[in-house]
């Protein structure tokens, strides 16, 4: 429950407007809506402040496996406004949670599966991915097969265009894909009015233990050696003695203790684009953070789900140097913390009719912490 999963940058998209599917986690680009009964209403895609179109900042596929039910079709979209004035105002950000409440056999929007197994909450079918999406479900019950499944899973992840490599990321267009599939090939979305951020895909990595942080890179090592210290500590003969020292918290001129802890976590994985920890604790860079509100539908207090981290802005900025029509410089956030409803409630229009699947879009809450 408390573990943190990091979203690390993967491969760049060939074209920023290319279509993925809603099982892919990516940054930038255009949002991939699954087939909806009712299309996403225009109002949700417009900025509250200026009325302009919001652009997709992050699309994260976040299925849940809870005790009572599992929601496999759950995607979180983070939308932001790129205009200069709106960028620093937290009201211009919008987080949408889109989920499907019931699993349906006749669902049309799973082109990857050859057959449609009936989904139940207790067993999840294994699926060999054949295309670039990462909608793989792993079987939990079979011990002997799970190893092989991991292989295929990892292979799928590689093939799913979520490979990472620093050098490759920069020249993403030169990297050819191994598999180009028919139904979900890279089509372009012909939506030219929406502003688009540079697009790259995300792979997930577990936040490893503290040991790594101590070895976190220290560039530009000091000119001190431990032996020198031991020598100098012998020079106590002049009557000086460092008395009365007590423990002191970290402090620097521009950075306080909370920020330094935030930075320490970032330095462990300097490229992390977001941190995902359903129900876990957020990493706050400042001490006083406003509390999240309550869910508008069920009234329960929202819970932390994920937070976007600053390296994301850096990558977007690097990519948008030459081709952007809006500037990302208007964004100066240190982190965007996203809180979602713990009950994953629906918007109320879907009932418990059997065989009926409905998709709900619920607006969640984002707290933007600015970088002063």
């Amino acid at each position: 429950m408390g573990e943190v999963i990091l979203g690390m940058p993967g491969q760049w998209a060939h074209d920023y407007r290319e279509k993925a599917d809603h099982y892919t986690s990516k940054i930038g680009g255009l949002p991939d809506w699954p087939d909806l009964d009712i299309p996403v209403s225009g109002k949700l895609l417009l900025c509250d402040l200026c009325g302009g179109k919001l652009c997709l900042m992050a699309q994260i596929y976040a299925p849940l496996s809870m005790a009572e039910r599992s929601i496999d079709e759950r995607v979180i979209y983070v939308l932001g406004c790129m205009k200069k004035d709106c960028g620093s105002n937290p009201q211009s950000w919008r987080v949408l949670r889109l989920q499907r409440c019931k699993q349906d056999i006749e669902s049309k929007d799973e082109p990857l599966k050859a057959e449609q197994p009936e989904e139940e909450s207790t067993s999840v079918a294994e699926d060999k991915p054949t295309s670039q999406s990462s909608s793989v479900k792993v079987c939990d019950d079979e011990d002997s097969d799970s190893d092989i499944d991991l292989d295929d899973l990892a292979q799928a992840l590689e093939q799913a265009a979520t490979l990472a490599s620093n050098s490759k990321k920069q020249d993403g267009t030169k990297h050819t894909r191994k598999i180009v599939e028919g139904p979900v090939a890279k089509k372009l979305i012909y939506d030219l009015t929406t502003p688009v951020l540079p697009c790259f895909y995300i792979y997930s990595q577990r936040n490893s233990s503290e040991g790594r942080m101590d070895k976190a890179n220290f560039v530009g090592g000091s000119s001190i050696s431990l032996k020198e210290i031991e020598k100098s500590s012998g020079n106590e003969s002049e009557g000086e003695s460092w008395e009365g020292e007590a423990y002191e918290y970290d402090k620097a001129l521009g950075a306080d203790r909370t920020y330094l802890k935030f930075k320490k976590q970032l330095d462990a994985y300097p490229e992390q684009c977001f941190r995902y920890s359903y129900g876990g604790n957020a990493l706050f860079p400042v001490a006083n953070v406003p509390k999240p509100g309550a869910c508008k539908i069920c009234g329960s207090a929202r819970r932390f789900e994920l937070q976007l981290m600053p390296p994301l802005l850096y990558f977007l900025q690097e990519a948008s140097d030459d081709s952007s029509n809006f500037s990302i410089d208007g964004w100066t956030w240190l982190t965007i913390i996203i809180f979602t409803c713990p009950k994953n409630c629906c918007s109320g229009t879907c009932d418990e009719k059997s065989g009926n699947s409905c998709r709900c879009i619920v607006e969640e809450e984002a707290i933007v912490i600015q970088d002063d």
Partner: protein
Amino acid sequence: MAERGDRGGFGRGFGGRGGGEGGGRGRGRGERRGGRRGNKSEEEKWVPVTKLGRLVKSNNITSIEQIYLHSLPVKEHQIIDTLLKGLKDEVMKITPVQKQTRAGQRTRFKAFVVVGDGDGHVGLGVKCAKEVATAIRGAIILAKLSVIPVRRGYWGNKIGLPHTVPCKVTGKCGSVTVRMVPAPRGAGIVAARVPKKVLQFAGIEDVFTSSRGSTKTLGNFVKATFDCLMKTYGFLTPDFWTETRFSNSPYQQYTDLLSKPTTKALLPPTEEPLQAEA
């Protein structure tokens, strides 16, 4: 194996356990990532976190004086590394600090590190940690985050380069107050051993000092000296009597520059879709 129960499914959606963590097969497949991680630990590229860091990384800010001019807080030590190349560091002292617990005493080490380039920039860092190496490393980073400019002036004739403090300044920390008085050339740094080091790193050649209070608490003594150096640029001398001409902070400067519409409009690639479907 995936655990049931309340668990965020994001990792599960990716099969995160297959991707990131160990397990022989996982490592085999993810070897690229593991290998990369190994390479990265040797010389890791700096990914800036703050806006100022991004500006420095993209070489929009070339001199640290631009940062000082607008009093921008420096939150990443790599900024200082990039802008000040000749920074030297020295550990002034490592002292054990003890805390009494029921199970005995818990000892941690407190490191005092001073960094400076000997030419007007100096920083002081203090860090407590359980191991000496960690304390030193942390203190160097904190010292770099606290680098300040030091103003130097003349004692008498304004010939040659500035060599001493511009006026009498005093700094205080705890009960220790340190007073620095301009000295003629050739006087050297007239101070105790510990603050002398800080003043040497700052690039002050001649100064008379006088201290008061419990200077045995050398931690406070060193911080008082540092505080004194911070005040050299805070002192209003007649040179500053002219009206300030305010300039744009780097944040505004570069936002305006980059938010101008570029000449290259985002035209739809009309030919491409035909080729993709062909």
